[in-house]
């Protein structure tokens, strides 16, 4: 009972954050056809920037309830600064072989890793006391869930819902989907594709930075968190199917639960189990579980 409840909550928590980052990866792949290895770096940058923002806010003695908007806001701010400038760099190689596009994002991984080292140092950082400021939800005498985890799950669900609504229901969402479907046709219909690319990439960055900012109070920010997250985010998009948003959700839930279950039941199998699933999916259904096109 205790273990299964912990696995459940831990799994959904992992999945919520993973989905945000994976959704960023998916939308950039869907529209720009670039697999962004640096999505993990944005996640790490978001986490560190979130710590700084909280430390800054603490000086003004803000109430605990303001922590979440501060974290989300810091993630968005970072994305608005970083997104357009990185997209400007990527624009130079849109017409190139996709291998070079991946390698450029790999270069960004190296650059951002040292940028973090330069700004925040190599020692892992923790936030001010946010995690316990929200207290915990006591379900049974031996089972308590930190409220912060539930807040992150709710926030991620809210962001995902808003994101989905934007893609499906708004004019901008229709333009994005049309550009993903057929870039030339969209251009012919007077869509300013370069603006769409910039907006989409910034959106992808924002999902990563906000994800990182939200998760950091529950743990610590470390130099390696970016490159480690890529591995999970890749697993999510392979399992779900490249470019598919529902796929990213299913993938994030699978990876989240498998990881959470492995941590509680058999820690040695944590990454191994995820990658066994990834390879099985690639062999049996290479386009992913929910890919739109084969």
């Amino acid at each position, binding site marked *: 009972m205790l273990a299964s409840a912990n696995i459940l909550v831990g799994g959904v928590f992992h999945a919520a954050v993973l989905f945000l980052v994976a959704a960023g990866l998916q939308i950039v792949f869907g529209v720009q056809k670039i697999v962004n290895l640096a999505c993990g770096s944005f996640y790490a940058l978001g986490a560190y920037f979130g710590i700084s923002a909280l430390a800054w806010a603490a000086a003004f003695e803000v109430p605990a309830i303001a922590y979440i908007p501060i974290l989300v806001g810091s993630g968005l701010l970072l994305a608005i600064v970083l997104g357009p400038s990185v997209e400007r760099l990527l624009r130079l190689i849109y017409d190139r072989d996709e291998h070079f596009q991946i*390698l450029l994002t790999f270069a960004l991984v190296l650059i951002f890793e040292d940028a973090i080292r330069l700004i925040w140092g190599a020692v892992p950082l923790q936030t001010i006391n946010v995690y316990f400021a929200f207290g915990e939800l006591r379900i049974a005498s031996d089972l308590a869930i930190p409220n912060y985890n539930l807040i992150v799950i709710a926030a991620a669900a809210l962001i995902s819902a808003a994101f989905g609504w934007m893609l499906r229901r708004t004019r901008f969402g229709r333009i994005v989907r049309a550009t993903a479907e057929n870039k030339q046709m969209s251009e012919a219909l007077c869509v300013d594709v370069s603006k769409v690319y910039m907006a989409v990439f910034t959106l992808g960055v924002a999902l990563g930075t906000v994800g990182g900012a939200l998760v950091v109070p529950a743990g610590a920010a470390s130099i390696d968190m970016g490159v480690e997250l890529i591995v999970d985010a890749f697993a999510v998009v392979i399992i779900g199917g490249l470019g598919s948003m529902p796929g990213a959700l299913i993938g994030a839930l699978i990876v989240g639960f498998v990881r959470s279950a492995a941590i509680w039941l058999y820690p040695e199998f944590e*990454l191994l189990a995820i990658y066994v699933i990834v*390879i099985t999916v690639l062999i049996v259904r290479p386009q992913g579980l929910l890919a739109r096109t084969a």
Partner: protein
Amino acid sequence: MTTSTAPIAARTASAGTLKRALALPALLFLVIFLFPFIAGPHYVILMFSAMGYAIALLGLNLLFGYTGLLSLGHAMFLAIGAYTAGYMTSTRITNFELILLVAVAIGATVAVPIGLLCIRYVKIYFAMLTLAFSMLLYSFLFKFYHLTGGDEGIRIKVPTLTAWDLSGLDTLSVLTGPLYYYVFALLVLLTALMRCLTGSSLGLQLRAIRENQQKAEYLGVNVKRYRLVAFVIAAVYGVLGGVIIAIPVGLADPTIAYWVQSGNLIFMLLLGGYTNFLGPLLGAVVFIFFQDQLMSFTEYWRLTFGVILVMIVIFFPNGLMAAVDRGRWWST
């Protein structure tokens, strides 16, 4: 990416052109050969691992440069080589030739099933699948402490040679003397072998697959079989490189299998020039020495390397060798 007209051109060229054509590779190998006489032990050890990387990159280039498949998991083969060396030397089997043979056998055995799965895909799916397999190996090496030593890894003792009695020498003089020249000979041999392979019909068919898979298939090239052959050869070069890289470190640890290591391998290849036969060699040497120099005066070497990689990708996709290359025999 031009087709292979260069070898024929070189063969029919006059003696003078031929001499000039051979000058650069000869110079490169001469520098490596004379290196223990002109540089201090620290740099000789660096060159030792650079030779290991060069061997691994020669193989990787068959996959990336010739066949057009980007592997983000090639480090798994380096790890297989390194851990083979670790296991064997820790069980008192220190014979270098035997270690290499066993590593090749294991590498090829592992590469065939993995290759059979991976070569069904191209482009980004190939990259992701190879990354998945290397991370599978990484997590196994990292988590199964009682089998692999976990994050501490396995110690590697300095190997012995059949034809050369090393018993009177200390570790440093073995690495900078006999073993250095042994590895050098191996590098020359493997470079020549790769030259033969890429110059043969195999190289031509791989390039045909890279340029236009459907056309190649239509002309009767067995695409999957040739991709698999390229994958396995690349893996074998990778394990050989892995054994050599791990010896001066004296340790096989999981980081050698991490995906960032695979990314660095591709970086080296681009630095040297993947369109060029000798690009891997130059890339490995320049990367290793530049990294060493950079690390000695700044801890932010990744930042510099990242900026360099951005520059290469955007402005010089053909790498360093393109700067000195004028369609000579070593260009492909």
